[in-house]
């Protein structure tokens, strides 16, 4: 059984329906640790040793956050800057994260059609998340395509939120139990593009 760390970052959590629903759907699962960065470090003073310890204790690392300005909320950048130390995360001696699985779980306002070369946002999610792909590469982690929920706005129907939450729970559970087909995931743009084909029935 894989242990899964979810680094959660949302500066205005009280007003995010989707992120709360996603988080709630996995919080009670065995082997899952939710690490709320804004709640843990409201003054941004990140405890590097604690964070590194958490990473070392888990096999899968998820960054769950809203897609702010084609990137993460500010504290996640601070987290990367401080926690991923040379000699620990990268460099010839830095092998603490080697072989771990990494992916982002992002929620965004514009829908899928806006994230295209000819779309409103001019770039694909794959292109925009490439810094994290590069980070995972440098830290010798296995990068997976992001779990992506797009077209978020206020007043979404409850069943839609429910459906995304269910998918998230399914994907996280499959990663935990090793029933997710890592090879097959790369055929899709998003981790949740077609969960039925990439999860083996155990």
């Amino acid at each position, binding site marked *: 059984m894989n242990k899964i760390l979810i680094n959660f970052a949302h*500066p*205005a*959590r*009280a*007003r995010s329906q989707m992120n709360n629903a996603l988080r709630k759907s996995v919080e009670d699962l065995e082997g899952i640790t939710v690490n709320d960065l*804004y*709640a*843990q470090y*409201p*003054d941004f003073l990140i405890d590097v040793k604690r964070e590194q310890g958490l990473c070392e204790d888990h096999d899968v690392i998820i960054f769950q956050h*809203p897609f*702010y300005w084609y990137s993460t*909320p500010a504290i996640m950048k601070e987290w990367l800057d401080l926690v991923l130390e040379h000699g620990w995360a990268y460099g010839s001696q830095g092998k603490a994260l080697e072989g771990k699985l990494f992916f982002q779980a992002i929620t965004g*306002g*514009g829908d899928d059609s*806006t994230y295209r070369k000819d779309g*409103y946002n001019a770039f694909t999610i794959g292109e925009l998340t490439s810094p994290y792909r590069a980070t995972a590469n440098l830290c010798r982690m296995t990068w997976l395509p992001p779990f992506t929920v797009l077209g978020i*706005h206020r007043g979404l129907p409850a069943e839609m939120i429910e459906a995304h939450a269910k998918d998230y729970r399914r994907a996280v559970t499959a990663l935990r139990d090793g029933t997710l087909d890592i090879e097959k995931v790369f055929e899709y743009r998003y981790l949740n593009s077609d969960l039925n084909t990439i999860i083996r029935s155990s």
Partner: protein
Amino acid sequence: MEHFLLQLFIFLAASAIAVPVAKKLGLGSVLGYLIAGIIIGPFCLSLIDNAEEVMHFTEFGVVMMLFLVGLELKPSLLWQMRTPILGMGGAQVMLSSLVIGGTAFLFLPWQQATAIGLILSLSSTAIVLQTLREKGLMDTSAGRSIFSVLLFQDLAVIPMLAILPLLATAAMHADSHHNAVLFDISALPQYLQVIVTLCAILLIFFLGKFVSRPVFRAIAATRVREIFVAAALALVVGISLLMTVVGLSPALGTFLAGVVLADNEYRHELEGDLEPFKGLLLGIFFISIGASLNFTLIGNQIALIAGITAGLMVFKWLVLFITGTIFRVAKNDRPLFSIALAQGGEFAFVLFQYCKSNGVMDAHTVEPLISAVAISMFLTPLMFLVHEKFMSQTPEDDTEKREADPIDHQGQKVILAGFGRLGTDLGRFLISAGIKPVIIDHDPVNVEVLRRFGFEVYYGDITRLDLLEAAGASEAELLIITIGDSDRAGKLVQLAGKHYPELKIAAVAADRSGAYALMDLGVSTIRRETFGTALTLGQDALKLLGFDPYDAYRMMRIFRKNDEGTMPELYKILREDEEKYISQYQQHNADLENLMTLDMNADMEHLDKAWTAENPEI
């Protein structure tokens, strides 16, 4: 009595006139005193008699100065300085004695030449230290090197006193020994003399380490200030007496006592109380040197005396320069190091008299030498001026200048007034940040307790100017006021503003109206004593009520920023309203209401607007 008062008046008036004039002309106080001495002396206005007697009495100023210097030197620091003291000081005294003695040997018998060499190797502690202090050079690397050499010279006087009588060429006078006031230990056998001397030194250590603290505390608790002054004077005079009895230099004895008391919490109080006495005695001492310049003699033997003076200064300068090079005094410091010590000292007056009475030299030989020493002392402040002029003209060498230790220096830059509940945490914080403040507190019990925990706390009333000065206000960069009593805090702000306009001030106010009172005095960095804690506790409360921790944190920050931002505006309103004679109480309530409505509207909205993503297409 009348005569004494008249003499006193002349001395005091002369210094009151001469020193400000000299300072105005950029000459420094020492030169001012010396000139005043010449003017009121027998060869100008002839207003005073027996200047030499006055000189002997006021030599005590040197003793006090060394006590005060000792107070600023902790034993650990003194131990660190052992190499410069023994090495540099030893080399300077030996080489100078050899060179000067060797030159004198060309004209005089070897006994006299040796005596002259030894005596003239000494420099003037009084003039040099006073000038260094005035120029703020005491705490520089050059200042420390100079001080090391002076300290060794003071030590060297003791063996000199023993050696000089052995060089006698003429028959000794029967009354060469001083008449001891208490008892004469030279009547004792040799080994007992040594034991008595050692016991005297041990006594100083014992008194300083164990007895002084409870005694000072008891005296401080009476809160009668002059008793503390009396005790401080009695301490210095008593040690001098003790040292004289056992045949050691009083200056050295009091210096030792000063070192022993250097980490005593009453150190700044002692400094503040003795400083005026020392200053006055030294001032009069300098005046008497000026007055004792024998111009008839100088006129008659001008070539000889000028030759001796020039030789003395040039040889000493050379020896110092070589010593400085050998002991790796920084290149930039060497000129100052050499110039500062290239003169004869006040000990020369004493030792030449001693030689005369012991039959080493006759008056005919001694008098031109004394004049030369006096002239060289007179020239020293001028040499400092020349040095300053010369050095400021040479282009600055940045890389070498930056060698000074900045952290060590920064430590002395903060005075923390008040070390109560708030001051304690503040002090701990500053110390952990590598800033070592000079801490002054007014409560003897508090000081006692904190010292037991290893804090460097001093007892004293910081609202007194002399204590503020002793704490280093003229060199400090920042004064932090954490005194709860707003009247005393205000008094301190005014005192500091008046006498040290360059000193930055950060202050704690008990509450909003206390902050306004400080704003009245022009303080701009003010924190309200309980404000920070109130808001942090508020943040905790929100968290316990289920607010998201980050929201609670932001609420706190936003409130704090708004509140601090509106302070100047509300201050203005308050002061204007006061003119309209609205009672303080009503005003307080009105302010409160005003504040409350302001907060209710603003802060939640602030939080609400953040991170609300809208679709840019809309």
